[in-house]
């Protein structure tokens, strides 16, 4: 029974609670046992079992009283990037050593206000900078998937930066998880673990209380086991927040209802620029399968062109580090976290930041500082922001021509091995985000949905990119793909 409870979707938990088939306390207890048994995956950096049990008791009373809220008794994992009052919040970095905020992020406040509880904080790449969850101060997360249906013993990465979120959801260590996406950090880990992940339109979800990486690109979203669950979670997470100056004051629709809309009359664009050199045959075949699934559901498939696609990744590696170098200036050993003494105040700053930041974070701060420094601003930063305008214009053009959503592969490969990329150049790791980064640069909603397994029996996903604030079409299309392709879960070995 215990294993069955942790395998239920958010929608099934909601229905089961309503029917009194089981209680939130039973569900939370089942998850706490599952967490204890899965320490080898390293998905959580802190757990909060007492709080989860107390919340479950309160939820039980509400359900009995008939006053259940939309996420009543749903146990979630929260990415370590979200400020949670009184609970470990370190962005998986050493520099935030011991930080426990006195405030709650808007998103977690909304989720808890809708009745959800928290099982703990999830591992991630340090400051969300990475594509494999190997840059965490707390060590790598291990993907619950293994090649050959579990017959291989080689540990795989769960993707990044939301690798704890994707691994925990895939391994049934939470019913759903919060995640964030600056260049693909929701969609790539979702793709590597056979889970569903959506990065909503920039401005949909409040950034208040989410540790900042690159403020013009950062967006939060859910990772879940089904499309419907992503719709349920996003509805609670999204919405206007006066505390975030770029939050959009636009009504949040019923995303769950949108999952049943179908594809009749929709025009789906297939961008030729996403057919990159050296793309594995399997990815190409998956993409063709996805086109057929949407076509069978009544969509019209249209070939389109997004000519500036190849420039999105290089432009991103100027814009994102530039914003990061500014955002991460606050970690100075004065206001929170680690302090390493020095002979004067400047050397205290320098020693603290040298000891507190990991290699990848330092590299990005350095690039960002360089491209913003005197004499280089125009050549790098200004040019990248102009290219960004052209990338956005590409999308505006196809949407103006009547395209409702765009279908692409989510990643150029399935999950790779832990340590496999350690000798590679940073650029090779950055190429993981080649299909996802364009949506961040243009601020568009985009979703990864599992669509099949590759020859190694590892999950592969497709990506849907939508018009601004039209997450509903993505949910409708993703549901069609999920219905046709089915769901994928790893064989338990841990």
């Amino acid at each position: 029974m215990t294993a069955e409870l942790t395998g239920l979707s958010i929608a099934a938990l909601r229905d089961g609670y309503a029917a009194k088939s089981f209680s939130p306390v039973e569900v939370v207890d089942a998850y706490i046992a599952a967490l204890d048994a899965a320490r080898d995956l390293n998905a959580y950096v802190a757990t909060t079992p007492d709080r989860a049990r107390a919340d479950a008791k309160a939820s039980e009373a509400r359900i009995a009283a008939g006053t259940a809220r939309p996420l009543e008794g749903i146990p979630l994992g929260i990415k370590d990037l979200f400020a949670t009052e009184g609970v470990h919040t370190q962005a998986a970095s050493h520099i935030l050593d011991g930080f426990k905020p006195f405030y709650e992020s808007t998103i977690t406040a909304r989720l808890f206000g809708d009745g959800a509880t928290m099982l703990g904080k999830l591992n991630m790449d340090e400051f969300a900078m990475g594509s494999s969850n190997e840059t965490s101060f707390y060590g790598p997360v291990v993907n619950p998937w293994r090649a050959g249906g579990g017959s291989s013993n080689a540990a795989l990465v769960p993707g990044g930066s939301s690798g704890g979120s994707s691994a925990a959801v895939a391994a049934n260590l939470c019913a759903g998880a919060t995640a964030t996406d600056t260049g693909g950090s929701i969609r790539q880990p979702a793709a590597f673990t056979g889970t569903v992940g959506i990065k909503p339109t920039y401005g949909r979800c409040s950034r208040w209380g989410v540790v900042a990486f690159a403020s013009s690109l950062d967006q939060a979203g859910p990772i879940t086991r089904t499309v419907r669950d992503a719709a349920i979670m996003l509805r609670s997470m999204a919405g206007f927040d006066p505390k975030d100056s770029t939050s959009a004051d636009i009504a949040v629709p019923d995303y769950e209802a949108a999952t049943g809309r179908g594809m009749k009359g929709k025009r789906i664009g297939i961008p030729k620029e996403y057919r990159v050199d050296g793309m594995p045959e399997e990815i190409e075949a998956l993409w063709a399968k996805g086109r057929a699934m949407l076509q069978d559901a009544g969509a019209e498939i249209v070939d389109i062109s997004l000519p500036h696609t190849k420039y999105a990744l290089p432009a991103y590696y100027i814009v994102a580090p530039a914003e990061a170098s500014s955002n991460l200036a606050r970690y100075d050993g004065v206001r929170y976290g680690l302090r390493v003494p020095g002979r004067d105040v400047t050397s205290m700053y320098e020693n603290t930041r040298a000891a507190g930041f990991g290699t990848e974070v330092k590299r990005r701060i350095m690039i960002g500082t360089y491209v913003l420094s005197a004499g280089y601003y125009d050549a790098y930063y200004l040019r990248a922001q102009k290219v960004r305008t052209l990338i956005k214009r590409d999308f505006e053009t196809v949407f103006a021509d009547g395209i409702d959503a765009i279908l692409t592969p989510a990643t150029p490969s399935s999950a790779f091995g832990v340590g496999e990329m350690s000798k590679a150049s940073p650029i090779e790791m950055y190429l993981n985000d080649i299909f996802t980064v364009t949506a961040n640069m243009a601020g568009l909603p985009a979703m990864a949905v599992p669509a099949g397994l590759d020859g190694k029996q590892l999950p592969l996903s497709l990506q849907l990119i939508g018009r601004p604030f039209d997450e509903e079409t993505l949910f409708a299309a993703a549901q069609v793909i999920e219905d046709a392709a089915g769901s994928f879960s790893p064989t338990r070995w841990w």
Partner: protein
Amino acid sequence: MSVDTVTVKRVARLARIAVTDDEAEQLKSSLNGILAFVEQLNEVDVDGVEPMTSVQPMRLRRRKDEVSDGFMADKVTGNAPETEDGFFLVPKVVE
């Protein structure tokens, strides 16, 4: 464009990150790899293109100029490594 070790050390100083000579060498090589990668942006004709300032057309909202929050020095300094009487303590800055 590429950077030399002197430039790496100057940028590290601007970023307030102490680096050893070995680290400076490693950073030099990875930074030059990234700078070579972003070089391809020079192929793009950006004449007359406005730089992006916001992905959505929006004007920053204004609020009334009034006190809406505050009087929580204990919380503000509650996570600091060293404090005294609601102030952050740092090494002596002015002699």
